[in-house]
């Protein structure tokens, strides 16, 4: 426990500095309220325009296809590392997996999921 003592002291000092700054600014800081300051702060500039914009479904399709082909990478890397050990069984298993993915791609293409402008 004693080895962690400096760490706890560090936490204590950090809390003291952070808390102290809050107290000091509320107590000593000048206050000039205006409209922009009174708004709830999110981030960046104040937004203008409608908030209920519907993102195009194309983004969703792209994300979905990305996941499908990302999984491909997840599977292929470990297989490549063990290529010799897995032998022909591994080779044909991976080949059939890639064939499945090719079918997925063909399906997506024929269904029009890859056409950005329609």
């Amino acid at each position, binding site marked *: 426990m004693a080895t962690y003592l400096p760490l706890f002291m560090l936490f204590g000092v950090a809390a003291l500095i952070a808390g102290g700054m809050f107290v000091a600014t509320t107590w000593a800081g000048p206050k000039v309220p205006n409209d922009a300051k009174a708004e709830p702060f999110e981030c960046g500039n104040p937004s203008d325009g409608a908030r209920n914009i519907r993102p195009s479904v194309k983004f969703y399709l792209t994300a979905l296809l990305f996941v499908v082909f990302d999984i491909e990478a997840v599977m292929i890397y470990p297989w490549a590392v063990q290529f010799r050990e897995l032998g022909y*069984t591994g080779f044909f298993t991976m080949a059939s997996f890639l064939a*499945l993915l090719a*079918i997925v791609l*063909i*399906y997506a293409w*024929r*269904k029009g999921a890859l056409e950005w402008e329609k």
Partner: protein
Amino acid sequence: MSDSVFFAIAPLLVVSLGGLLLMMTEVFATRRADADGPSSDLAMGTFITMLAGAITAFALWLVGPDNLAGAKAVAPYLLVDRFTLFFDMVLCLGGGIAALLAGGYLPEHKLDRGEFYPLLIFSTAGAMVLASAGDLLSLFIGLETMSLGVYAMVGFRRGSMRSTEAAIKYFLLGSFAAALLMYGGALLYGVTGKTALAGIGAAIRAGVSSTDWGILLLSMVLILAGLAFKVSAVPFHMWTPDAYEGAPTPATSFMAVAVKSAAFAMMLRVLISVFGDPLSTSWGTGWPPVVALLAVLTMTVANLVAGRQSSVKRMLAYSSVAHAGYVLVGVVALVEEPGTAQGSIMFYLLSYTVSTAGAFGALILCGSRGKEAVSYEDLAGLGKRHPAVALIFSFFLLSLAGMPPTAGFFGKLYIVSSSIGAGLHTLAVLLVLNSVLAAYYYLRVMEYMYMREPAAGAPIAVPMRSGYVRAALAICAVAVLVLGLWPTSSLSMAIDAALALR
């Protein structure tokens, strides 16, 4: 790895490859603008795929799974035994009938998009994996493959608020149930260090320390709750009526028969292989009292609520919950009478599959041109206007109510006799009383069809014309009649299958 592996998992391969083939057929088919929608060729293709899957499973049954060299290579991830093959046949039957129903329903209700059929096939493939899974990993993969397809099918009517609500509700609660199961499975792995169901069971039988026993009980509770969600047992049934009502009726039929059968297959495997030790199966320390309570609640609550529904589809949804309760009575009887109780459960699931798919099919036949027949009033006077439709609807309802000479009668009879054999007299009496209660709402549909005239100006159901739906109804009707008149051969098949699971 040799070729024999492919023989051993042939039913699964046939169904999956058929699904891929149909996907490609759909996207490459050139269709004239005035031609029928994709259902016109995909429905039959899907049915043939499922039929091929069932026939392959039957062929493997005749060969005998013990003679398959490849079966050992896929164990314990996929167990190829008679239990698996029996469920493969039941699931392919449920999926095939749903495909035929969809062939009539989707074009009639302007939902004719080809995606339905691959979803149906891959869901069935997932259900088959689930029924044959002998390892927590493959069990979970099968469960999710099955469920994902069904979530999409439930929300297939995209423009409808009700269908979307049903899909979201089913998705959220289904994922929650899967999470419970997974947590339970993780605890099991934590205690025993194994993922194979048989290995976990052996480790528990060998004895565990008392702290570990507490964790095991927790995992048992979590797994039972997850399973109860999937078979929609009260009090985990809340999603059932909404999801069943919002889904397109062929998807409802698939959920009621195939998803439920696969969930029961999973339940039987888990309870027997993992929690089959004397301590877990005793009434003082194990799962029997919990399952008995679930069974009593499920039967009684579902039957009471089903009688108060004004929508026939919702009534059938509650009826499917009630039937899950009857099956749970059989599950309790497993402890004392392992072979016969399990055989009776499996026979019940088979007879329930054909009766329920038939009842939903008849309901589909009663609606047309975008309007489903939902309320009792829609059906008023159907017996005079369309006697054939009313007759076949009544036949399936009688089977669900358990009247001889239908499949439903023998299903209930075997469950009751096995539970009496196991000494569970109270449960048996409650089951019989509940079937009397259930007869009320099944007969009420018939009363509306035969003894009421539609109110003046009220919308009446106009039956649709579809060869697919008629074919599905014919298959179900023949199966209900055959199982009702000659139940012994299929029962002995079910018992054979049950004996495989030890």
